[in-house]
């Protein structure tokens, strides 16, 4: 008996000459929240549609609870999909929408009534059964769509960017609700999105996808702290990136702008003299570091303060080079005096400088 609800092996899908999904492998643990994160056009929707059964792969295998579902039509697969635009049936009311799948299974009406009532209760919409779809708010529609799929007790619930259509405030709220709901029902969720915050907040595991292939599968925290590729470093969170040359490999040091040396961490095997990219996160830059703290220190000239509440950033140039760098500017009154043109000392810890 395997621990996994979904196993995908060497999956390939081509559209004419274009390879949309390129040898993808992953396993999703029972009851976990798994996200596939990637920019639009990276192939994540194609991957999802293959799992749902709307597309057949060119090669590879999809196993749900240890059984291959290749060739099984979508209406017979034990997975349900929350569509991007939810696709609630406008000609039916809430109850008819939710009981749609149960009716297809020829379940007696009295059982259906009970199940619909209990799922509505669970998603926090009791008494909403008779409402028309166009009477619901965005968040309520969301919950009805989830109820419609969950009532069928699928092995896996697939979600295709269902929060994309909501406004910002509601999206923040639904993120938390979705996570709570998933923990409560214990169903395996496979969630695809291009929004990293959605993926990071909700998921147990996140797969970062680019150009049809997986770059890294890891916990949200590891993706942020230990990105394995440059793409992941760039895509997850914000990053300053610099062209650098390896000046020594033990201790690992890189040079930028031919004269500035940084102690850094090599994420891949890089030998002396190799060209690489140096990444420094804005939030890892410390302004006015203590004198005796062991870290990379350099001075910058402030160009601008980009005020954005808790996300306020400092745009500066390194030394006199004109090379731009972003640093987080904590809004705790300490740095309110900073003005454009000012020269500042900044520092960054060695292991916050990553190289690929």
């Amino acid at each position, binding site marked *: 008996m395997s621990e996994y609800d979904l196993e995908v092996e060497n999956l390939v899908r081509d559209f004419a000459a274009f390879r949309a999904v390129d040898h993808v492998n992953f396993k999703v643990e029972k009851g976990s929240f798994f996200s596939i994160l990637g920019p639009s056009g990276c192939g994540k929707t194609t991957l999802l549609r293959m799992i749902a*059964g709307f597309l057949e792969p060119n090669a590879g295998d999809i196993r749900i609870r240890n059984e291959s579902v290749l060739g099984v039509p*979508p209406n017979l697969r034990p997975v349900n999909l929350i*569509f991007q635009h939810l696709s609630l049936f406008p000609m039916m009311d809430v109850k008819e929408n939710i009981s749609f*799948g149960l009716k297809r299974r020829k379940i007696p009406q009295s059982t259906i009534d009970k199940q619909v009532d209990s799922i509505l209760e669970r998603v926090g919409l009791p008494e909403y059964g008779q409402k028309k779809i166009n009477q619901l708010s965005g968040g309520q529609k969301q919950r009805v769509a989830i109820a419609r799929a969950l009532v069928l007790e699928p092995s896996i619930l697939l979600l295709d960017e269902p929060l994309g259509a909501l406004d910002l405030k509601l999206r923040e709220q639904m993120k938390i609700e979705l996570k709570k709901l998933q923990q409560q029902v214990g169903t395996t969720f496979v969630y695809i999105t291009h929004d990293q915050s959605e993926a990071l907040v909700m998921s147990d595991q996140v797969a970062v996808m680019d150009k049809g292939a997986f770059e890294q599968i890891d916990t949200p925290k590891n993706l942020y702290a230990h990105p394995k590729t440059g793409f992941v470093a760039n895509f997850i969170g914000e990053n300053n990136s610099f062209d650098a040359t390896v000046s020594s490999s033990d201790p690992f040091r890189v040079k930028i702008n031919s004269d500035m040396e940084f102690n850094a961490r090599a994420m891949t095997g890089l030998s002396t003299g190799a060209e690489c990219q140096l990444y420094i996160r804005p939030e890892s830059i410390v302004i006015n570091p203590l004198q005796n703290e062991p870290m990379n220190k350099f001075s910058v000239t402030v160009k601008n303060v980009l005020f954005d509440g808790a996300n306020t950033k400092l745009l500066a140039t390194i030394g006199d080079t004109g090379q731009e760098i972003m640093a987080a500017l904590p809004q705790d009154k300490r740095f309110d005096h900073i003005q454009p043109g000012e020269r500042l000392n900044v520092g960054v810890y060695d292991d916050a400088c990553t190289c690929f």
Partner: protein
Amino acid sequence: MIRSLPSGKTYRYGYLLYVSFFYLFLFSPLLITCVLAFNDSNFPGLPWEGFTLDWFFADEQYRTGVFHDDRNLSALWVSLQTAIAVSLLSLILGTMAAFLFEQERFPFKQPLFFLSLTPLVIPGVILGISILLASNTAGLYFEEHWGIDIEILRPSFWLVVLGQMSFISTFVMLVVSARLKKFDPALEEAALNLGATRPEVIRLITIPYLKPALIGAGSVAFLMSFENFNTTLFLIGSDTTLPVSLYLQVRDGSTPLINAIAFILIVSTSLLALINLLASQRHKDE
């Protein structure tokens, strides 16, 4: 100019006057026809001789009301049968054409689509005569070569049905296509994902979604068929439809009996129109 922009008094009132005249122009022939259906006179005109229902219910030698006039009643019956047959058949054919051109891919799709639009720009008279000629040619051919007489190829009820179908189907196709274009295929996928089979998807999702368009197209098809004159004229056999029968009566002089029939037609079609418009209004936001 428009609601939000200022405009002069003369312009405003002048415009209002024009539009009022237009509506008067629009309704006066219908109103006068209705009013004169109740005039107690043997001639459809003024002066007003008093109110009567004779032109509906009388059964005398010189005054026969609609409900006792066999000629018009049987023509009405023929028209109703034709309209029911035509609207049902066109609804099926037009919907299939809409599905064909909206959802299928096949060679020569564009030219075929173009061809399917042409019946709307071919004058009805020409559709009538060309179908008459072709059915006659085919009928002669079958008789000469096989010695069989095919009833349907001679001017008859079914030839009228075919003739009207030939262009009413195009109309149905356009109405259904317009709605089908707005259909989100994800709804069908959602139903499949929830366990529905293909036939169930069509029955439970696609058809209910198309329902307003089907009702609208069906009722307009019914009226187009019921009122058709140009195409029908050349294809009818011994059973005349109401418009043809009325035409022959109007051409040879008129009695208030025609007003009474017109009154019934005006009231019933207006009701049908209103129901149809209200129904389409109600479905607009779905």
